[in-house]
């Protein structure tokens, strides 16, 4: 056994040897989609293609820039971290506006801009008949800008801005078809549920600021590493940050919003709810990894591991019983996100990020393929599909590639990344670095089997059997199938970047900070063999149940019937939220708020109005009585004295002359006598 283990070398990152040309200007990457958002929003209807041209052009340039920047980094350019003062409050509170372009950021830039580019091209075909086509492109651009902003942020406050920006765009796009009540409800549900986590995220930021005195992520990481901050405060801060990640990345128990988020257009599901936004939580944990590792001896990572282990299993089970093809993919996304967290939790940082990277490609591929299917049959339900391989050969081939990658069949992308996570969990278990490693390992292994099972079920129900829908389905236009081919091609090759020992991915992605640990996964040939056998077992069971059996296979007839009822109600989690949170809030709290509004707030408002009225009438009286009396009195006095004096003016010249002489006589008399 021991001889089968390939001993890992000491990983060294790429040595920076020169100042790069591109990393310095990477702030342009988020700026370009932001500009295209404004352009499309204000002039979209006048632009060629009703706005998609501006969006696609901006994101294409951003992608090329990201590519240039990343190649620059890989060939030895220095990473760039700089910041500018944004606000300075009296005291020590400073908000900076900064960028931190390193390998992790560069990789995320590549993923986000690339998937966004493909999705925008794809949407030109998919959304063609949509009445809010221009608006759709505007929000898509805004989403991309927010996501890139989140990724490049060098401090937590900026990250929060991007974080909320992507949340808003997600809300807008889930509710794109808001004419149907369920869609707008889904949008609200997604927004509120992630907001529950966001509250934790915000308090985590405040907690870190209180103990570290800065928002800068690099400084916080250094402080966490050299013991400048620590103790229970750091543990609480890490757990609060993880709350945000749980909400955004749809982990147990806050994952309930992601399946409902499938109410949005399918390209949106591919971009936001599979490849980019939902990995923001994973990215957050990765960015602040030293905080998690050095708080209380890695206790927060144990929590992450347990949450991930629970999530991957429950989501995979739910994916097994869905009829809506997008919901299968949504639960699968939740499950795969849990794999990424598991990778981080057991200490194989690189593997977790590698799974994020490969998952973005094959899950975007699956979603866009599902969109192509939905476009053809005008239904999300697999019970309306069947036999599609005959009608849509391009979609079929690419979809199968994506599915095999998801199920972890070598040599596709998902196999390598998933195996590294499993290998990492195994090593952490053997070395004893994480107390919960065996739980994570066991859960991940069972999930690998379940993933193959539900993936095969999805493919069988969709592509084999007889067509059960209405009308004649047809292959999608080229603008939709070409992104599928591109993604399928990449799904075939990107896995080799992380090939054991010789892969280059581990030189790119390593933990932030200087001493945080990133273990090499345990490479041997037994573990991949086990996972491949598990996946093939899943395929075989699916073949037996769903292909040989009826397409409408009934779980209730099997010995898992008791679980089916439980899973069909989604573990009652939605009911608990509805009964335990929404209803108590909705009725008593709303009534109490109404009462308070009527009696307290209205009292205050009315009181203020009455007070104002009284003061106004008092002022009126004072004005009338005092000020006007003074003014009128002065005028009256002047008039009265004028009336008296006018009698002197007789007009008789001789009388004037007489007065003149009389006056002189008086003066003379006075002068003479005095």
């Amino acid at each position, binding site marked *: 056994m021991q001889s089968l283990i390939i001993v890992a070398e000491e990983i060294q990152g790429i040595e920076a040897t020169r100042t790069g040309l591109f990393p310095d200007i990477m702030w342009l990457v988020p700026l370009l989609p932001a500009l295209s958002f404004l352009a499309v929003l204000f002039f979209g209807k006048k632009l060629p293609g009703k706005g998609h041209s501006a969006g696609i052009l901006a994101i294409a340039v951003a992608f090329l820039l990201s590519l240039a920047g990343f190649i620059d980094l890989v060939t030895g350019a220095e990473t760039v971290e700089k910041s500018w003062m944004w606000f300075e409050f009296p005291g020590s509170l400073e908000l900076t506006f900064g960028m931190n372009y390193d390998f992790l950021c560069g990789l995320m830039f590549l993923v986000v801009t690339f998937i966004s580019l493909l999705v925008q091209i794809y949407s030109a075909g998919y959304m063609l008949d949509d009445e809010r086509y221009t608006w759709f492109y505007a929000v898509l651009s805004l989403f991309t800008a927010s996501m890139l902003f989140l990724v490049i942020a060098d401090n937590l406050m900026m990250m929060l801005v991007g974080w909320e920006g992507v949340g808003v765009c997600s809300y807008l796009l889930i509710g794109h078809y808001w004419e149907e009540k369920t869609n707008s409800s889904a949008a609200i549900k997604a927004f509120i549920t992630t907001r529950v986590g966001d509250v934790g995220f915000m308090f985590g930021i405040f907690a870190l600021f209180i103990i570290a005195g800065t928002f800068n992520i690099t400084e916080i990481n250094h402080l966490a590493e050299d013991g400048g901050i620590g103790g229970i405060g750091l543990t609480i801060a890490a757990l609060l940050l993880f709350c945000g990640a749980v909400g955004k990345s749809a982990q147990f128990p806050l994952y309930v919003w992601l399946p409902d988020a499938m109410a949005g257009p399918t390209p949106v599901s591919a971009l936001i709810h599979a490849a980019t936004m939902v990995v923001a939580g994973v990215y957050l944990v990765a960015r602040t990894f030293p905080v998690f590792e050095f708080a209380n001896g890695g206790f927060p990572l144990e929590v992450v591991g347990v949450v991930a282990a629970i999530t991957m299993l429950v989501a995979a089970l739910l994916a097994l019983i869905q009829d809506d093809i997008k919901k299968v993919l949504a639960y699968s996304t939740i499950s795969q996100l849990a794999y990424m967290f598991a990778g981080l939790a057991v200490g194989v940082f690189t593997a977790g990020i590698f799974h994020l990277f490969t998952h973005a490609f094959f899950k975007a591929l699956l979603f866009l393929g599902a969109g192509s299917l939905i476009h053809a049959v005008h239904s999300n339900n697999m019970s309306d599909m069947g036999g599609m391989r005959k009608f849509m050969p391009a979609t079929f081939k690419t979809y199968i590639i994506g599915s095999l990658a998801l199920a972890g069949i070598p040599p596709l992308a998902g196999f390598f990344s998933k195996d590294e996570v499993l290998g990492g969990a195994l090593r952490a278990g053997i070395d004893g670095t994480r107390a919960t490693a065996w739980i994570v390992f066991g859960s991940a292994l069972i999930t690998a089997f379940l993933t193959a099972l539900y993936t095969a079920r999805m493919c069988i129900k969709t592509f084999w059997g007889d067509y059960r829908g209405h009308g004649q389905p047809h292959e999608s236009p080229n603008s939709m199938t070409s992104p599928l081919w591109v993604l399928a091609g990449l799904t075939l090759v990107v896995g080799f970047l992380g090939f054991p020992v010789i892969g280059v991915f581990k030189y790119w992605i390593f933990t932030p900070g200087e001493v945080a640990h990133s273990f090499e996964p345990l490479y041997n040939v037994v573990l991949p063999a086990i996972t491949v056998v598990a996946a093939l077992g899943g395929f075989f069971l699916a073949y037996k149940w769903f292909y040989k059996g009826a397409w409408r296979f009934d779980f209730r007839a099997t010995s898992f019937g008791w679980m089916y009822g439980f899973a069909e109600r989604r573990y009652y989690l939605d009911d608990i939220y509805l009964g335990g949170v929404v209803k108590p809030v909705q009725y008593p709290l709303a009534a109490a708020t109404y009462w308070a509004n009527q009696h307290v707030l209205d009292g205050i408002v009315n009181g203020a109005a009455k007070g104002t009225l009284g003061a106004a009438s008092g002022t009126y009286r004072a004005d009338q009585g005092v000020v006007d009396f003074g003014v009128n009195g002065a005028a009256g006095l002047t008039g009265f004295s004028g009336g008296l004096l*006018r009698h002197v*003016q*007789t*007009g*008789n*010249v*001789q009388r004037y*002359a*007489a007065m003149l*002489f009389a006056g002189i006589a008086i003066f003379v008399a006075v002068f003479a006598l005095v």
Partner: protein
Amino acid sequence: MPVSFFLVLSALLFSIGVYGVLARQHAVLVLLSVELMLNAANINLVAFAAMLGQAGVPGQVFALFIIAVAAAELGVGLAIVILIYRNRQSVDVDQMSLMKW
């Protein structure tokens, strides 16, 4: 002759002038009375000038000025009186109370 003789004459003449200005109804007579008052002043000036000898020369100059001014004043005054007569067929000063409220 002591200067007081001239001063008494001047005072009498001035008083007559004042009486004429204040009491007469006819506008021309009022103007003539004004002339009397001016000439009373002239007598005063000339009397003092004579008393002061060489130093009194400015008094004589002032007297000449007053004569010139009186001539001009009378010219303007008579012209006004003639215009008033043409307009109103009367030069009664009591009826000329136009400058009142």
